[in-house]
């Protein structure tokens, strides 16, 4: 499996449980027919770098491309600024430049499906990373972490932490964005087993701290202490929610349990104000794996049809529950002086700082 060659790397976090615990055999894809003599020209079409997560993600990819500069001759990068229409153009432009392989993080699963399919049919191998496109036949493999798992974990933890009884509010991301909707679905799947968990209200937050904060502030005014838990699907709105509580005059230890991973600030605030929390980062390191998988394809090495990257479960000390055990506690995961929007699971060398990081890669 792709994650095997991680084994040597420092900070190795083991293979994904989804892979390890998969009762079926993980099916492999034969990539012989894509084998090609290097050095390669690879095109990477990114949906956007419009938030901290996506930036760290792209950093990982560029860094990895640099690590493999012996095989990669040119590494072309485009950024669609979250606009699927532009991303279609970007992909076409990459094709025009004669790339040997396309590494794509699509803005939406569906809108990019047809153009990606056309690329494959023109004989250009496509590796999806972060998000896929709808039709499996339109790409070779998909490097990702599971949103379903994230959603399930968060809900399960919340339900158990509240002993199956309590009123909660849900703060998902962007209405209609697949990660957000998948996680919501997984949340509901879990809650359906806990009649005692009552969802007071669900409000989208666009994964925007300001919106998260304003929304939570309003909800606090509306429900006050009635809220027993806040289920945020990411820290982006998650820490906004914590701040809303602080502004509303709640102090250390008075803030209800929360979920949400991805950026350091949430963990830091949770530690500072004793907020019981469970966070599971959607790892930006999947970019690195993505590049490696892409090279496997061009080298004709078989790859899994779906490459899962590992995820670490982070909780406040003594916030573990029966089925959600911590891989590490808050302060093993981040340090209080990390930049607030650092993505902890980045797989990048020690001391990685998104603001200053400028990897060398074959342009």
């Amino acid at each position: 499996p792709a994650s095997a060659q991680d084994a040597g790397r420092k900070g190795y976090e083991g293979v994904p449980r989804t892979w390890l615990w998969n009762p079926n055999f993980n099916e492999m894809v034969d990539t012989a027919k894509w084998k090609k003599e290097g050095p390669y020209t690879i095109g990477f079409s990114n949906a956007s770098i419009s938030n901290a997560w996506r930036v760290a993600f792209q950093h990982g990819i560029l860094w990895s491309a640099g690590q493999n500069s012996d095989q990669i001759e040119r590494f072309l990068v485009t950024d669609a600024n979250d606009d699927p229409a532009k991303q279609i153009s970007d992909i076409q432009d990459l094709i025009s430049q004669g790339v040997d392989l396309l590494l794509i993080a699509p803005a939406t699963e569906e809108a990019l499906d047809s153009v990606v399919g056309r690329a494959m049919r023109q004989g250009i191998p496509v590796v999806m990373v972060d998000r896929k496109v709808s039709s499996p036949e339109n790409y070779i493999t998909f490097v990702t972490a599971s949103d379903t798992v994230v959603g399930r974990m968060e809900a399960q933890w919340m339900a158990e932490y509240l002993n199956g009884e309590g009123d909660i509010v849900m703060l998902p991301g962007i209405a209609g964005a697949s990660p957000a909707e998948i996680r919501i679905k997984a949340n509901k799947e879990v809650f359906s087993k806990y009649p005692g968990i009552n969802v007071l209200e669900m409000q989208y937050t666009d994964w925007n701290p300001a919106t998260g904060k304003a929304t939570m502030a309003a909800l606090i005014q509306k429900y006050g202490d009635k809220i027993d838990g806040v289920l945020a699907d990411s820290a982006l709105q998650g820490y906004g929610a914590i701040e809303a509580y602080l502004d509303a005059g709640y102090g250390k230890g008075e803030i209800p349990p929360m979920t949400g991973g991805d950026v350091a600030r949430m963990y830091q605030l949770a530690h500072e104000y004793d907020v019981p929390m469970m966070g599971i980062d959607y790892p930006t390191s999947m970019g690195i794996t993505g590049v490696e998988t892409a090279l496997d394809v061009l080298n004709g090495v078989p790859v899994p049809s779906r490459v899962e990257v590992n995820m670490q479960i982070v909780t406040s000390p003594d916030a573990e529950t029966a089925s959600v055990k911590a891989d590490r506690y808050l302060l093993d995961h981040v340090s209080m002086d990390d930049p607030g929007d650092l993505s902890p699971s980045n797989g990048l060398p020690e001391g990685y700082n998104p603001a200053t990081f400028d990897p060398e890669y074959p342009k």
Partner: protein
Amino acid sequence: MTEVDNAAIRREGMSMAGMFEKYGLIVFLALLLIIAAVTSPAFLGPQNLVNVLTIAAPLGMVVIGQTFAILVRGLDLSVASLMATVAVLATAFKATDDSVIPLIFVAAIILSAMVGLLNGWLIAKRGVSPFLATLATMIILQGARFAYTGGAPISTLPPGMAWLASGRVFGIPVNLLALGILAVFAGVLLHRSRIGRQIYMVGTNPRAAFLNGTSPERITILCYVLSSVCAGIGGLFLLGYVGTVSNWVGQGYELDSIVAAVMGGVALSGGRGTIVGALLGVVVLVVISNLVLLLGFPIEMQEVIKGVIIIGAAAFYRQRLM
């Protein structure tokens, strides 16, 4: 002639339309507030009102600036991008003690002023249409910002920045106080000072203004500088509210600020409008968003309601068409 005299006096007094122009939005706002209070008990909670105003404050600052730009027959699309840029600038000091905050403000104001100068120069001296000029600066700032931060700004901010959003002086939230001061300053400048008078002259009839010894170019440039500076200050207060720097602080404020101003009776054709009116527009806007939240409408309903209310409010104000 005396006939006309009295006739005209009566006209002044009786002009129903005139009354409406003046008080339409207040009436509308009153209705909105009543509806809010009735439908959602939480709305009138003191903390909630403070929340609403806290969110209104940065937007209010931007709208004050936007008003100047619109008064001289323009508009400023670069405000939001500038807010984010200022936020990023605030991190440039990599400082964690509050002593630098004044410095941050100074730096932000200087940067904003320069951006305003660029807009003003393009529009007044080069005759570029305000829409494109400010759109261009918006995009350029965005690029420059990203290039500087490499996409991910560090969030090392003096803790005191948060005080801008949560702090209080004599029990009054700091950001409201700041908004108040800014509003008074802008109001005096616009409605009491010579420059204000000249702004209206240029907005109403640039050629006549020129023939009366006013320089439309200088006034226009000044207005865009004011617009940028207000946006810059608003950016810092919004930053205080958000807590961390991102490249998109203030996203959407460009259109919101224009809508608020226009709802508040600032005419896009220039020369007509007041600070108070514009600020009323802001209140309407934020009350809507808060209300739809309190009523727990799903996102799609929120969008619909917002849209309807925006049109409704403006209809109350009977804007003149371009």
